């Protein structure tokens, strides 16, 4: 809609008129019987899959902002995807409250480091954390990689390092995690499927 000056003035006038009438106690009846504004009108909708159990319910997520540069999106409402053949729009209590997981006060927001013996976290940069992790991994691998076993068979395993992967991460994450750590010779890889 194009907002002309005239229309703008009309609108403003009407608004002022309405508010002053209301202030005088002439609240229009309509206001008295109005429902709450529909909170999803014009919001951005994204399709996703529930992160909890393996039913894999379809989700509709609604976020702040329309994707413009100056708006930082944040999800404020999640409900079931009615098109999804399994959940057909329904969600369990956990799924119905996913927004509180996404926006949990216990979400981590910065890399942290705990030095040996320390009793508190220290916020660090990504550079520091990743560099130091890589350093420690390389040193341990170089020291402990078993290239051959007692019979001289090439075994190339790194038994002193392990990885627990997440069964709630995406296939892409799981695949890349597996690829990266197995290539280093890690044998102690597991995910929640084990427990």
């Amino acid at each position, binding site marked *: 809609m194009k907002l002309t000056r005239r229309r703008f003035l009309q609108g403003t006038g009407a608004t002022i008129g309405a508010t002053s009438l209301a202030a005088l106690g002439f609240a229009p009846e309509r206001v008295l019987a109005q429902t709450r504004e529909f909170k999803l009108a014009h919001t951005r909708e994204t399709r996703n899959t529930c992160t909890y159990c393996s039913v894999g319910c379809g989700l509709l997520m609604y976020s702040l902002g329309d994707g413009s540069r100056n708006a930082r999106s944040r999800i404020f409402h999640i409900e079931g995807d009615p098109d999804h053949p399994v959940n057909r729009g329904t969600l369990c209590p956990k799924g119905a409250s996913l927004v509180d997981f996404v926006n949990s006060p216990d979400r981590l927001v910065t890399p942290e480091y705990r*030095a040996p013996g320390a009793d508190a976290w220290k916020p660090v940069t990504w550079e520091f954390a990743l560099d130091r992790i890589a350093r420690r991994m390389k040193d341990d691998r170089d020291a402990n990689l078993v290239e051959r076993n007692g019979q001289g068979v090439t075994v190339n395993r790194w038994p002193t390092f*392990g990885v627990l992967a997440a069964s*709630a991460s995406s296939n892409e994450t799981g695949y890349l995690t597996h690829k990266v750590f197995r290539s*280093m010779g890690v044998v102690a890889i*597991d*995910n929640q499927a084990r427990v």
Partner: protein
Amino acid sequence: MTNHWTDIKNADVVMVMGGNPAEAHPCGFKWVTEAKANNHARLIVVDPRFTRTAAVADLFVQIRPGTDIAFLSGVMNYLLSNDHVQREYVAAYTNAPFVVREQYAFDDGLFSGYDEGARSYDKASWAYELGPDGFAQVDPTLRHPRCVYQLLKRHVSRYTPEVVSRITGADPARFRQVCELVASTAAPDRVMTSLYALGWTQHTVGAQNIRAMAMIQLLLGNMGMPGGGVNALRGHSNIQGLTDLGVLSDLLPGYLTVPKETEPDWKRYVEVRALKPLRPGQMSYWQNYGKFFVSLQKAWWGDAATRENGFAYDYLPKLDRLYDILAVFELMHQGRVHGYVCQGFNPLASAPNRAKVTEALSKLEFLVVIDPLRTETSEFWKNAGPSNPVDPSRIRTEVFRLPSTCFAEEDGSLTNSSRWLQWHYKGAEPPGEARGDLGIVAGIFQRVRALYQKEGGKLPDPILKLTWPYLDPASPSPEEVAREYNGRALADLPDKANPGKTLAKRGDQLTTFGLLQDDGSTASGCWIYCGSYTDQNLMARRDPADPSGLGLAPGWAWAWPVNRRILYNVASTDPAGKPWDPRRPLVRWSGEQWVGADVPDYKPDVPPSAGMRPFILNPEGVGRLFGADKLVDGPFPEHYEPFESPLSADPLHRRPAARNNPAARIFPDDRAALGSPDEFPYAATTYRLTEHFHFWTKHARIPAVLQPEQFVEIGEALAREKGIRDGDRVRVRSRRGQLEAKALVTKRIQPLQVAGRVVHTVGVPIHWGFIGLTRPGYLANALTPVVGDANVQTPEFKAFLVNVEKV
């Protein structure tokens, strides 16, 4: 799941045992409701507790934790002794007619070949009698005394209703009702589905629990049928995906297995896995193992994987032992593990014997935690009063905590229990500096690789030569990775049927694993996912149409393998290729080829008269009532007491070695930490509540409101005995630790009469810990024992011993 969520609506009987779907999978359980409403289905629930699933059941039977095999064997005994089996199906589609070697024996709880010192079996005798042609011998009449049918009949004959009731505590009348209802589905037009979850897996006899049900389903002719099958209701959103991708100590993507050090080269490695058919005309699909393996190696190491170097076979580590989580924590506890990464995994809360886990983590040199949330594991070193009584100054572990995105802040695919790969989209920015897991893993890898490039070091090649074709090496996109695990042609693939034509051009995304080659001309990071991302992303499909009315929704997302929605679906037709139940036609032989609503699980142009059987992955071509050598603890399921049993005497066997699963591994210090019924008289089991998801939702406000505080469930009789009332604080102790919680006194756990004594059960919900928005609580794994299933080492969280007292 052999079938899928929506398919539950096709069932006539729903058997929930070893699971509590109303509570753990409510939106999947919807389809049970649909079956009840639209199919007049009956719901049976067998559980140690009257659960929320039981609340809507037609028939509920309470059993003692850890006695499922006794119950199921009793059902099998009923089916076999009253001839309530689908005879035609059993004869054609199971190994019932197969003759077993003469050396096979079973006596008082032990199968032939047991070595008590090694706690393991030599499985040589658990095999079929082979004829001179190399094929297994069969007796179609099922009368041969050593045929599987007769052996099974004999094996389960011990599980009379009296014995079942004596072991499980089940009410005999209700047990009988269950048997009758289950038996009703032996008719070809009646189907039962089995829904189970961790209530079966978290036992030292976990795999055999499931086998017992699979055998019942085979006897009833319910495998491959719409509304049938044995359905694992998996716990996490992508636990199926991570299993498919082999992110487990002994697996590679697509159920390929990590080489053992007894397999020195790739030829040998493939040979023992590419099994030849055991009956004439069978497909034995694993014969293609080499193609899947070579394609994986090409995906990972590209040009560095050549025929000459055995397709980089040596770049893969070789196993000398098991490295499952229980074994790794044992090694860590011994100080033999130095570095550990926990990516979205909270082992302090979810691995058994929390005290041992704390000690083990304290012995690490460094721990990396990648998670969206403040997990207990990441703060294992932080004192949190009685629920985490540690002294940080004595813990030398260096801990890194890296904030990751959650599902809502990333694109990607998840594989649900139905084996559907569903693509999802980013809806918001992550909080603060949080990064996606792909970027974090790439960040670590890029840095390690740079160090090897710069400094050299031990065995740098597998790292330096790992394919990394991503546009932004520091942050691979989900699409790139998905295209990689789908696979592509590395050369033009000639069509052998039409000379001169190609099946795929060099560089094309592959459409099916049927195209994979063992000559290095194809790459596929996970063969069973081949076809998920062709020239388009099939995982992102959103057509909910269900033309067959069976709930298949073939245009929604993409199911592995090859978009097949029901596994073994050709078993839903009789040996002439006609559906057993004409009301539920899934696939059929048209006279020229296999057609139907689902993708036939079969070679599409082989007529039924050719004798190829529908269980095409098995060398036998049929379903296994006799497990042969596939499991380590016996070809038939047998009831063994949990490692912590409330009974001081074995109710079934006289032989001490057969009291607990004789093939289950237990480390000496863990055995020493087992409790006895004198000190810890009550059976206990851990479980989830519907309001919470593991240890995540205690960080979310609404779930914290819905179930705010830790409690344990105690039956009214035991509570009376102990003077405990609703809402009192109680202490629950096991040999390994203790917790304090509120008491919830309930009629829903009744004392059971078992082997002449009364057994009380204590219910211990998990979900609470020392961080979160709920009231602070204790990690339930303070109580649980470190002993796992004999086959897959899943810990026995569902049956152990505790004592309870009022605080």
